[in-house]
């Protein structure tokens, strides 16, 4: 039975109990008991008869918000006095159980098991009666009972645990332990696996093999009892949270072909916008709750196993991840004050669980293709376009270039997007071993991913390994590490697909000998997208060693712990390039190349002191103090040379070249932090949190290096109030409020100083380069923190036994002292000045709704809907004026577009007086100020690239061993200029254009201009970026246990999964999500559609 983890206690207990053998019940909380008519009637009877023990325990559960577990037989017929008020739960239980010959044991905070007082315990009888179903069933086929297994089940304190369920896996054969924890079970001759389970403990599975005696130690399952989220310098139960935290359950995304961890966040989390650029192994970009900075960084802080992480997310093997928690609001993020204004992504890697070593092998293999590519003019349309352009512009027909003409004559055409495609397999293999012994917890993994994107030359592979180890040396000292290493190989040059949009269908990409042409259509604008790919050498390998070592010391004062943590990250990269000599097509160049090495080392040392204390009954407080230092050092060097006369050694032959240059880079930045957090909880009803963090960062100006970031959060669990507690359909209602100030230090080292770069000049014929120095930035000794004040109001809810649950959050984020590259009069000597100027606001709504739509007889359909709405507004720039040059307007969102207002297409016979230069087929604009002319004053803000809202729906359908999940997502609103849809401003007479209709005198369209429209006003050609995408589909099947047990495996799951399967959009660019519109060297392109077949095997 897979344990389901839900938001709150009663529910999780209910679910867990489903795993207990029959004959067990528990003192159900009232809300549970009333769910069946029988129970309601029973309760009614009890109330008539007087106070039963069961009823009394139920009242205690309500009163103290605890869970009490007891066998039905134990409580049967027993009574108790009235329940009064006690100073503690323990005293209450002692009083209520008094005289019933029962006692209790506290498993953990809030969980108690009622059991008989030792000496009176009718142990053997109980065990016999429990195993009666065992003896009944086998009696029918007694001949198969071959042997008896005996043993003892103990807890970590070496105490026997009574009532542990022991079942032969895949059968109904089972028993339970007696009062001392002993058991005896008859099993058939075949080998099998025994499952030991008991509420509050981790289940264990043991292969029987030849053993006749199996002794087991069960360890308490702390985490399964309630959902825990990682909140920075610790964890928190979800119920105790005051802020807004989005969590990703990695098990849900484990079967998607996500080469990069980022992809698993895409489209399924409210308030988190992930953009995929479609390239192999690329790190996508993440923006949380809108853009808060203009010139500073908008990237969230990534914290890996507690340490700020500076590598790429593509360095991390997704299978190593246990959980991802995203701190969205000001107060949760405040714990990382100085860098938290863009939110914090907390990534936690796996730890070993369970006594038995667990070996897991996961693999997938698949194929991919472009999700969609721009449709270019085919041969006929291309020629027609030249004709039409000639008619429209009145100029001579542009002739085909010689090479084009030759292909035209020979009837040869190409589809350029087809020509730059390659076979695109993707495969991944991962092996991990994890487990837990008395004092050691371990997780060891290795993985290999190899991906080719459909774009020729775009390849990625990653080799990674991880060791997570905890050693509990004494009862007061634990030392551990999280260490990961990865090698990412991006070698090879991807085809320059921007050029695929320009090349004529009569191009010829290759010479007859198969080598690539540089200018496949004899035109300098139309470069062969494959030339560099096929002709040049490239090696691009990045190494990442991330190691974090910590020691936890329990100090001799109860509740006081000290942790010292040292994080080390070493990132190295090698980027080598070589362009061999080329002497065709009139070019005559010798080889040139470069070798660049870069090394980044980050060091972090943190001291954390934590104190937990229960003050009086139900009052809990915790205090965390932190002091830490951090440094980051980057060192790099680059060698280059040209005029290399022999290509044999490629980039390793730079020494024989001329113009050898050496570039060295080195930067260092440092930070110091101190932080205090005080938390207070009262009986899972009221929670309060105060945090203050003081951070210093070296890159800011003298006197501005330190910033102080306070915050507070409060939450109130309404459903735990006496008034609402009896409402049975209401599981959870919780209000959260938080307010906090965060900083953004997203500036590069030396940003506040005047930087000087070298320039070169040569005096005299045949002279050597003389080096000059050029100051490139205006120093700003006053450069300091950008700060964001965030307010968050959230509501968590759960209804009908969690059939419906979710949360709504409202937030505002006011950013001031924006880090802004201010445009200044260049009379100053510089065009820009990096300063803290201006204000920006983000406000929004986030909704997450999880529902179980159908749940009958093994068939379940669950869905999760997320909705994100963010409104971004620039409140203030330098002074009160709009910055038109940078397209920034007070009161408008960032990335606004300022342009003429499109008003259709000029047609023959219309009155051209407002735009005398126009002719039929030109774009018509509105004369906004009514002066009878189209002038720059007729421009206005016409829209923004930011969406109105985005949404995602994940559906999970399970039936027997099958699981089908599919994720739709989309965006609504937002326009982006897409210059490629203009039929030919950009050299329509020389290169190809998108295959879209255009105006002609014969076919006077009303929504598209003529080919050859010169766009005299530089209009932006905006397109909507709305889309709906079927992003992920996964069908998985878990093989039945009795089948895989025969081959001595633990679990086997096979799946087929697809990504970016279908997109519905009117956007004519590569992809509406990344909105890339750059023509010549785009950084994002068409997305990759892939299908994979995968398998997970557990041993």
């Amino acid at each position, binding site marked *: 039975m897979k344990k389901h983890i839900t938001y709150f206690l009663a529910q999780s207990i209910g679910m867990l109990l489903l795993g207990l053998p029959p004959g067990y019940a528990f003192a159900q909380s009232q809300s549970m008991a009333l769910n069946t008519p029988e129970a309601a009637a029973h309760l009614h009877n009890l109330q008539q008869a007087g106070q039963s023990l069961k009823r009394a325990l139920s009242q205690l559960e309500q009163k103290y918000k605890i869970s009490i577990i007891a066998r039905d037989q134990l409580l049967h017929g027993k009574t108790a006095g009235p329940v009064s008020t006690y100073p503690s739960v323990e005293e209450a239980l002692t009083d209520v159980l008094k005289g019933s010959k029962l006692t209790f044991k506290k498993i953990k905070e809030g969980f108690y098991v009622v059991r008989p007082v030792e000496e009176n315990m009718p142990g053997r009888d109980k065990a016999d009666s429990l195993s009666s179903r065992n003896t009944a069933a086998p009696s029918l086929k007694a001949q198969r009972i071959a042997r008896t297994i005996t043993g003892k089940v103990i807890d970590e304190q070496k105490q026997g645990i009574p009532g542990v369920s022991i079942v032969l896996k895949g059968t109904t054969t089972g028993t339970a332990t007696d009062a001392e924890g002993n058991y005896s079970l008859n099993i058939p001759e075949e080998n099998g696996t025994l499952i030991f389970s008991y509420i509050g403990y981790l289940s264990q599975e043991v292969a029987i093999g030849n053993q006749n005696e199996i002794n087991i130690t069960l360890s308490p399952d702390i985490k399964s009892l309630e959902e825990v989220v990682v909140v920075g310098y610790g964890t928190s139960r979800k119920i105790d949270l005051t802020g807004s935290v989005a969590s990703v359950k990695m098990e849900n995304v484990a079967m998607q072909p996500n080469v990069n961890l980022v992809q698993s966040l895409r489209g399924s989390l409210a308030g988190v916008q992930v953009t995929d650029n479609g390239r192999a192994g690329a790190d996508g970009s993440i923006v949380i709750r809108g853009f808060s900075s203009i010139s500073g960084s908008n990237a969230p802080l990534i914290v890996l196993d507690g340490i700020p992480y500076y590598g790429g997310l593509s360095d991390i093997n997704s299978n190593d991840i246990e959980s991802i928690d995203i701190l969205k609001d000001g107060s949760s993020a405040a714990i990382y004050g100085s860098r938290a204004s863009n939110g914090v992504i907390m990534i936690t890697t796996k730890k070993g669980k369970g006594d038995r070593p667990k070996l897991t092998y996961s693999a997938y293999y698949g194929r991919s293709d472009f999700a969609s590519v721009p449709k270019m003019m085919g041969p006929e349309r291309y020629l027609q376009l030249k004709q039409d352009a000639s008619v429209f512009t009145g100029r001579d027909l542009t002739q085909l270039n010689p090479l084009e003409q030759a292909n035209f004559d020979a009837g040869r055409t190409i589809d350029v997007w087809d020509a730059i495609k390659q076979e695109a397999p993707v495969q991944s293999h991962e092996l991990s071993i994890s487990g837990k012994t008395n004092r050691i917890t371990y997780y060891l993994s290795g993985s290999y991913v190899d991906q080719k994107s459909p774009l020729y030359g775009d390849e990625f592979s990653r080799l990674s390994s991880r060791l997570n180890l905890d050693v509990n040396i004494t009862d007061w000292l634990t030392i551990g590490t999280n260490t990961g290493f990865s090698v990412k190989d991006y070698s090879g040059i991807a085809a320059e697909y921007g050029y695929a949009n320009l090349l004529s269908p009569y191009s010829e990409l290759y010479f007859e000998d198969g080598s690539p042409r540089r200018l496949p259509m004899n035109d300098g604008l139309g470069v062969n997208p494959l030339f560099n790919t096929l002709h040049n050498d490239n090696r691009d390998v990045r190494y990442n060693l991330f190691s974090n070592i910590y020691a936890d010391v329990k100090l001799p004062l109860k509740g006081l712990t000290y942790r010292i943590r040292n994080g080390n990250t070493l990132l190295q990269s090698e980027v080598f390039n070589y362009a061999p000599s080329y002497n065709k097509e009139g070019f005559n160049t010798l080889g040139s190349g470069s070798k660049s090495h870069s090394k980044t080392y980050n060091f972090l040392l943190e001291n954390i002191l934590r104190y937990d204390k229960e003050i009086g009954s139900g009052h809990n407080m915790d205090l965390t103090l932190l002091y830490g230092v951090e440094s980051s050092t980057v060192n790099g060097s680059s060698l280059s040379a040209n005029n290399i006369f022999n290509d044999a050694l490629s980039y390793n032959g730079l020494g024989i070249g001329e113009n050898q240059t050496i570039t060295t880079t080195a930067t260092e930045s440092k930070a110091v932090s101190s932080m205090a957090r005080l938390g207070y909880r009262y009986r899972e009803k009221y929670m309060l949190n105060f945090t203050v963090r003081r951070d210093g960062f070296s890159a800011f100006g003298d006197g501005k290096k330190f910033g102080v970031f306070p915050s507070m959060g409060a939450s109130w669990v309404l459903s735990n109030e006496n008034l609402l507690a009896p409402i049975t359909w209401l599981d959870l209602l919780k209000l959260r409020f938080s307010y906090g100030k965060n900083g953004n230090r997203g500036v590069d080292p030396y940003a506040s100083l005047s930087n000087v770069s070298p320039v070169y*000049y040569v005096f005299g014929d045949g002279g050597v380069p003389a080096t000059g120095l050029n100051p490139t930035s205006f120093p700003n000794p006053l450069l300091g923190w950008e700060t964001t004040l965030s307010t968050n109001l959230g509501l968590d809810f759960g209804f009908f036994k969690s059939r419906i649950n979710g949360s709504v959050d409202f937030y505002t984020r006011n950013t001031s002292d924006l880090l802004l590259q201010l445009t200044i009069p260049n*009379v100053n000597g510089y065009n820009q000045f990096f300063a803290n100027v201006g204000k920006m606001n983000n406000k929004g709504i986030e909704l997450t709704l999880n529902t179980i739509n159908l749940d009958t007889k093994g068939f379940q359909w669950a869905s999760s809907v997320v909705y994100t709405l963010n409104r971004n507004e620039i409140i203030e720039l330098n002074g009160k004026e709009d910055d038109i040059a940078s397209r920034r307007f007070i009161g408008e969102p960032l990335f606004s577009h300022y342009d003429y207002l499109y008003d259709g297409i000029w047609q023959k016979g219309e009155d051209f007086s407002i735009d005398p230069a126009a002719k039929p087929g030109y774009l018509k604009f509105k004369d906004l100020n009514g002066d009878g002319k189209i002038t720059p004053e007729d421009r206005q803000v016409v829209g923004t690239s930011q969406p109105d809202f985005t949404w995602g729906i994940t559906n999970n359908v399970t039936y027997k061993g099958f699981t089908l999940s599919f994720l739709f997502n989309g965006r609504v609103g937002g326009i982006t200029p897409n210059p490629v849809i203009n039929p030919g401003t950009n050299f329509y007479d020389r290169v190809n254009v998108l295959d879209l209709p255009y105006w002609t005198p014969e076919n006077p369209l009303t929504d598209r201009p003529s080919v050859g429209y010169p766009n005299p006003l530089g209009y932006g050609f905006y397109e909507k970026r709305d889309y709906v995408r079927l992003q992920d589909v996964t069908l998985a099947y878990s093989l039945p246990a009795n089948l895989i047990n025969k081959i001595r495996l633990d679990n086997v799951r096979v799946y087929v999964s697809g990504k970016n399967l279908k997109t519905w959009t009117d956007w004519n660019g590569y992809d509406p999500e990344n909105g890339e519109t750059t023509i010549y060297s785009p950084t994002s392109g068409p997305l990759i559609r892939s299908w994979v077949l995968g398998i997970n095997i557990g041993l």
Partner: protein
Amino acid sequence: MKNIRTYISLCLGMMLLCVACGEDYLKEQTLDRFSPENSLVNKSGFDAYLVTLHRFAREENFEDRPDPMGNGTDVATSGVADGRFFTDYTQLNSQTDVVVSYWNWAYAKMLKVANLVITRAENPNVNWTEEEKNAVLAEAKFFRAYTYNTLVNLYGGVPIIDREQSVPRFDFQRATRQEVLEFAMQDLEFAVQHLPVVRSGLTSDGRIFKAAGLHLLTEVYISMGRVTNDASYYDKAIEAATKVIDKSAGDYQLMTQRFGDLQRPGDVFSDLFWTGQQNRSSGNLESIWVCQYEFGTLGGGEQENVTVRWWDLSLKMPGVPITAMPCW
């Protein structure tokens, strides 16, 4: 109990130990780049900034597109007269690329560096002789005057910036045309006193000599004469130009005999412009200031040599029409 105290004081002690590092720990030192403070400390440091001025002066010819000063005039016009190239001077406004690019070249390149050099030369801690200082100042002031002379002829009266700016300003005012010319004139009058007399040799080709200063000063005097209607400026102009003509500012002469590669067809005028025959070291005594281009060399600027890239067919691919050249 004793143990507890040891523990706690140990831990707190460690935390306090780290508190001890503070402001000093965060002090920033540039590791891989120079700053004006650490580079403008001696003659060779100042010389590096002068190299930059030479480089920027060359970039004037490549500030945006090759069309600004010729296309659309009687020199040349674009064959594609549909708005893709700037040709119509009636359409000039403050956002026109040409207008922006010359302004940017002047203020954000030339004047920025020239003013930095001139301002920082006042620093008494610079390790140099008075003679070295004046030589540096003379060259920097020549470039500053050169820039203002260009500005005043393109834009009329422009803001005069005479120093390095320490904080951004937003209150610049146009000076009058006369004030700008006077400012340039003063710079040049200083420069011609301290610029060296021409000499041949590898490292001096392309440098600024007294004759260049006098030539530019002549231009400025003429402009001053026209602005002020003071005829004495014309006398000064004649005086300055005469020093160049009568060889008192160095051995200059109009070339009258063919020189350089005599195998080449042509005349003495064409000899002046062949690659490798423009500098004095090649025997060309007519050139006063030569912008340096060196093909295939770092800083050689062949990419910026618009003239060669666009109109010199020697660099073109044989047999390929001009439209097939890579553009900018």
